């Protein structure tokens, strides 16, 4: 990214953050329109986070719905509107953790279907070649994420799948920034050794 593009990107991000803060303020005051606007802004991000954790669209959609209901019910607990994004991701992160705990409990009694495999029908194109490439990339990415340790996994997803800044990841996981950097370092180091995935990123695959 060139310095000019970076400045433009930072300005856009700053404007967006300002807009989110105002919406969060209004939402806390009970403004329904602002709440709906926040849902519009974040529901794809939250869905993506849940999808990369659960790997099924149906579960991801149900959990996303539950997360936003939780958000709405707990808006009065949000302390600073400028931390809305981290706060929402914290809710999502905790809700996903509860989901996996429940799955684990059901697993003890043999009532859950276990970890679901990635479903190629979850993808949206009608182009078989494109679908194949997407599936190949996603398989490799899931495989890579699966091999990471618990914290490396959580941090890698929040940083690179959800595009959160290190400061925001630290706020979501309630850890200090240097801890986040340490885990992120290990995850990236593992990525640097994963030639199969890197080939797909640089276009050298096949």
């Amino acid at each position, binding site marked *: 990214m060139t310095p000019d593009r970076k400045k433009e990107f930072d300005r856009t991000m700053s404007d967006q953050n300002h807009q989110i803060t105002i919406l969060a303020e209004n939402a806390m005051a*009970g403004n329904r329109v602002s709440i709906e606007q926040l849902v519009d802004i974040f*529901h794809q991000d939250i869905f993506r986070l849940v999808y990369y954790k659960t790997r099924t669209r149906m579960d991801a*959609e149900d959990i*996303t719905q539950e997360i936003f209901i939780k958000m*709405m019910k707990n808006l009065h607990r949000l302390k600073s509107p400028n931390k809305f994004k981290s706060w929402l991701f914290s809710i999502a992160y905790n809700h996903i953790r509860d989901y996996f705990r429940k799955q684990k409990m059901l697993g003890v009694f043999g009532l859950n279907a276990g970890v679901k495999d990635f479903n190629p029908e979850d*993808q*949206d194109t009608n182009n078989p070649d494109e679908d194949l490439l997407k599936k190949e990339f996603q398989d490799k990415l899931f495989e890579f994420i699966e091999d990471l340790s618990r914290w490396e996994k959580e941090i890698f997803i929040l940083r690179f799948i959800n595009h959160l800044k290190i400061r925001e990841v630290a706020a979501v996981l309630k850890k200090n920034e240097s801890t986040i950097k340490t885990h992120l370092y290990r995850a990236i180091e593992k990525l640097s050794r994963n030639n199969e995935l890197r080939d797909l990123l640089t276009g050298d695959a096949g």
Partner: protein
Amino acid sequence: MDRNEHLNKNTIIKAVIDGTDLSKAEQDHLAECGGCRSEIDRFKSELDTLEQKADITAPLPTRRPVLPEKENYSFRLFRPIFAAGLTALMLVAFIWWPNGGIPVYEETTAQILLEMEADERLMTDIEELEGIALSGIYMDESEETEDLMEDEFMDFLIPTDNGSVI
């Protein structure tokens, strides 16, 4: 580190995460070394591609979350008061109700007398059974009554004309 020495892989990764974490010497080297800068840019570019591809390959949600109508604020405000009132009401009812609301079976005198009669009948039956262990049916089949035995035996010993004992 030596100012002219290239950054190693670990330092490159550190620079990718946060360039400000590099030491003064490493930052100075980076400012002068195009090779190391391009190595960092190449790595950053790979990570950017990963982010973009992860976005593209993830499916889009088919439905937008639907939020419920907002809970009636006045009810939410009064909910603790309502709960406290209901608890107090239940407590009063519990104390006021005879025996704390637990049903107690009250026996009448007639019922007691009936039960005593039934007990007496049962005791009589038990006593009878103690005397004759077998029931009537088995007694008929297994032995004759004592009186009959005695008459026949006496008639056998001292026969009479009419068959009766003298």
